[in-house]
């Protein structure tokens, strides 16, 4: 399980590492982090493109997709016009890719892998080989998912939630989806074990739990969520796979009649069982997405306000409480499945309770600005925008968490608006902030501020133009996942808003071009950083050489103080790093 044996041989043959060992099957957490980041960014872009195609169909239903419409097969887009099956594939895969192949691998696999060992002063992850295995299980999982577009009948098309029985009777792409998911889940499990052990065992001397940077705390709690919430989905995946391949009926009740023909199965299964197992993961999953984002934002906010985070301990307790509560709110996704009063009251109550730590975290972050000396660089812009965007996402969760309001809003665009505010302008902005923030440590160069600011402002406008109208569309009653909402009178009524939203989405697409240009340009020709600590930050990752070598630290790091000692009265500079002896 551990790699000590190889470490001996590596110590001798340090310079003779082949290209493959160094960049492909690397055991170095930094290389693995970069591998995760690059593949996750690629998947994010792919998922984003699926969304942009969907937005065309939503805005102009039944009209041929301009320019690229003819690239697709006759089965998917005859004459450049999307068919409903293909629309459903795009929808299901957009969700799956963004959540399981984009955001989580970027937030946990990318940032977690690269930053966490550096921030706790460790030479590497606790199990480097396991870390490598985690990536090389993730990638095939991703490839299987993408490849499923080319199997007969196309990719999974039952939504990212893959509700049974629809998913049970869906074409072969669903089987690929399940197999891909099992790979992705396994990868996450391996990663989370590694993260927890690393955090518990490999902290530098003096780095007690309450001196950990908030980002490490967020990753630590996230890892527990992944570790304990993912296995039930894996079990559910196995059961659905059995249903599809071995003819069992775990999720199929007796007496189903599919298009006029009785389904020949034994029956006796429960469609709601799938929902329970799925949401047992998928609700904690929301916090898997949001917690690392909060961690990144906290780092950047502390650094750029030049003062300690307000209420560090409160933040830590809140994040632990959030993680715990996230396990017992899941059935608020199932209020409309015929749930009685007792359970719905329980889940409403837990849902209301879980909003409280979120409010506390937001308040603490906002109070951190008071009395600061705020620098508005690109990472900071993205990070501070996270806060109001997440606030909108969080607040709009309230009506959905109350069953009475949910009676009207359930499964409408209001839901889409709500969780996209949490995930897209929320989490994704935080992740972009993280890329801008840690880029100098990885490459030794800064990203262009000019391009960064264009990227930021266009993204901010684009995001809000896409998602803000969704609240109105949802309030009007339009269901989600509709291929053509103008079929309904109330959908036709708000069609203009959908069209506006689509232009917002394409603007958002244009904004990302600046980001891609910035990334490529800055890797080769960005402004070189003069010091190892260009942001004048306090946490341990800035104590390493730039970029950090194998083994990370040139000397064994030692920690003397709390993580965010900025503007300490009487100190000689406005930041006193954790690793600095004097101060």
């Amino acid at each position: 399980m551990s790699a000590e044996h190889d470490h001996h041989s590596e110590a001798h043959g340090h310079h003779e590492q082949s290209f493959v060992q160094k960049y492909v099957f690397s055991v170095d957490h930094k290389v693995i982090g970069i591998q995760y980041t690059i593949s996750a960014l690629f998947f994010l872009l792919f998922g984003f493109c699926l969304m942009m195609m969907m937005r065309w169909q939503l805005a102009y239903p039944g009209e041929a997709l301009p320019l690229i419409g003819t690239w697709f097969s006759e089965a998917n887009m005859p004459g450049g016009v999307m068919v409903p099956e293909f629309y459903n594939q795009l929808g299901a895969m957009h969700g799956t890719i963004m959540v399981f192949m984009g955001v989580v691998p970027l937030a946990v696999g990318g940032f977690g892998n690269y930053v966490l060992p550096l921030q706790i002063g460790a030479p590497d992850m606790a199990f480097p080989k396991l870390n490598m295995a985690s990536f090389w299980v993730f990638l095939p999982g991703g490839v299987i998912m993408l490849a499923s577009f080319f199997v007969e009948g196309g990719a999974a098309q039952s939504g990212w939630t893959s509700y049974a029985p629809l998913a049970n009777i869906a074409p072969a792409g669903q089987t690929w989806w399940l197999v891909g998911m099992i790979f992705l889940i396994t990868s996450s499990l391996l990663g989370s074990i590694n993260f927890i052990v690393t955090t518990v065992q490999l902290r530098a001397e003096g780095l007690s739990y309450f001196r950990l940077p908030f980002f490490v705390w967020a990753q630590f709690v996230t890892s527990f969520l992944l570790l304990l919430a993912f296995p039930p989905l894996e079990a559910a995946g196995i059961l659905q796979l059995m249903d599809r391949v071995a003819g069992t009926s775990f999720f199929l009740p007796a007496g189903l009649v599919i298009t006029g023909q009785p389904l020949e199965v034994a029956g006796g299964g429960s469609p709601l069982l799938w929902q329970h197992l799925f949401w047992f993961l998928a609700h904690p999953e929301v916090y898997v997405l949001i917690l690392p984002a909060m961690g990144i934002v906290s780092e950047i906010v502390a650094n750029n306000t030049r003062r300690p985070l307000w209420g560090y301990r409160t933040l830590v307790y809140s994040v632990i409480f959030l993680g715990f509560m996230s396990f017992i709110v899941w059935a608020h996704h199932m209020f409309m499945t015929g749930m009685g009063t007792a359970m719905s009251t329980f889940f409403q109550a837990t849902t209301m309770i879980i909003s409280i730590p979120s409010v506390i975290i937001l308040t603490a972050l906002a109070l951190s600005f008071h009395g600061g000396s705020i620098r508005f660089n690109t990472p900071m812009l993205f990070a501070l925008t996270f806060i109001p965007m997440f606030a909108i996402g969080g607040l709009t969760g309230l009506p959905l968490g109350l069953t009475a309001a949910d009676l009207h809003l359930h499964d409408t665009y209001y839901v889409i608006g709500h969780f996209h505010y949490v995930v897209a302008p929320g989490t994704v902005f935080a992740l972009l902030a993280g890329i801008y923030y840690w880029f100098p440590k990885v490459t030794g160069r800064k990203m262009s501020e000019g391009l960064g600011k264009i990227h930021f402002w266009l993204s901010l406008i684009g995001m809000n133009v896409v998602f803000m109208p969704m609240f109105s569309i949802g309030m009007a009653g339009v269901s989600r996942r509709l291929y053509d909402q103008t079929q309904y009178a109330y959908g036709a009524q708000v069609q203009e808003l959908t069209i506006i939203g689509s232009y917002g989405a394409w603007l958002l697409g244009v904004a990302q071009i600046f980001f891609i240009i910035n990334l490529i340009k800055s890797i080769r020709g960005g402004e070189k950083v003069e010091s190892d600590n260009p942001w004048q930050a306090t946490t341990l990752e800035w104590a390493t050489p730039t970029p950090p070598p194998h083994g990370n630290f040139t000397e064994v790091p030692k920690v003397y103080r709390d993580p965010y000692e900025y503007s300490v009265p009487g100190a000689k500079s406005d930041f006193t790093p954790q690793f600095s002896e004097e101060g």
Partner: protein
Amino acid sequence: MQQEVYGYWLPLNVSAHGEVIDQLINVLHVFMLALFVGWGVFFIHCLIRYRSGANPTATYDPIKAKLSKYVEIFVVVFEAFLLVGLSMPVWSQFKADLPAESEAVEIHVMAEQFAWNVHYPGADGVFGRKAPQFVTPENLLGLDPDDTNGKDDFNSINNLHVPVNRPILIRLTSKDVIHSFKVPVLRLTQDAIPGQEIPFWFEATKTGGFDIACAQLCGLGHYRMRGQLNIQTQADFEAWLAEQVEEEDDGGFAF
């Protein structure tokens, strides 16, 4: 006509229970807006007041924030009020207090890919037994041909006729996958789960024709699974019933 029913916010409400829901949604949004604006003003104030140009040295000590504590306590109390005062009464009325079968108009709705089969009991007021093995293109509900109660039953597809101002008790099932019966003007969503029969009820307060939508992805025709809710006066409803019963056959063969 449509302009008045549907707009950019909550559509017209035609249900008895919808008023409280609208009230909850509106109160909630005022609360959310107040919270967001108040908090946003503070946030933007901080950003401007404490920009590095205006405040070159940051304060190390945390500010004493009594107000934030009060705000947090207020949020907790208000959420408790929303939950206990507004949300739960509606829900328990909706789920626990089903109207007595004697006073309600009972209708069965059976969802399938991609249509709503509406089952009326016919002249005798008794529903015939349904079972999946009897489903044919001519017998979409799967009525048991041997059950005499079902002889005068009739069904309509995608057309739900109900009388105004009377409790309507619907028993919802699905033949194949999960669907969701949604009528925005009734402030109503209810999943149809195959293998389960779920009762729910509403009382319409205005006459008119409104859309029924499917709110749960059910396949390629999900977006087209549209039904029509016809809320009629008692007299019109009875006339419609009589017309349907007449059209049904008299027990002989029909193809």
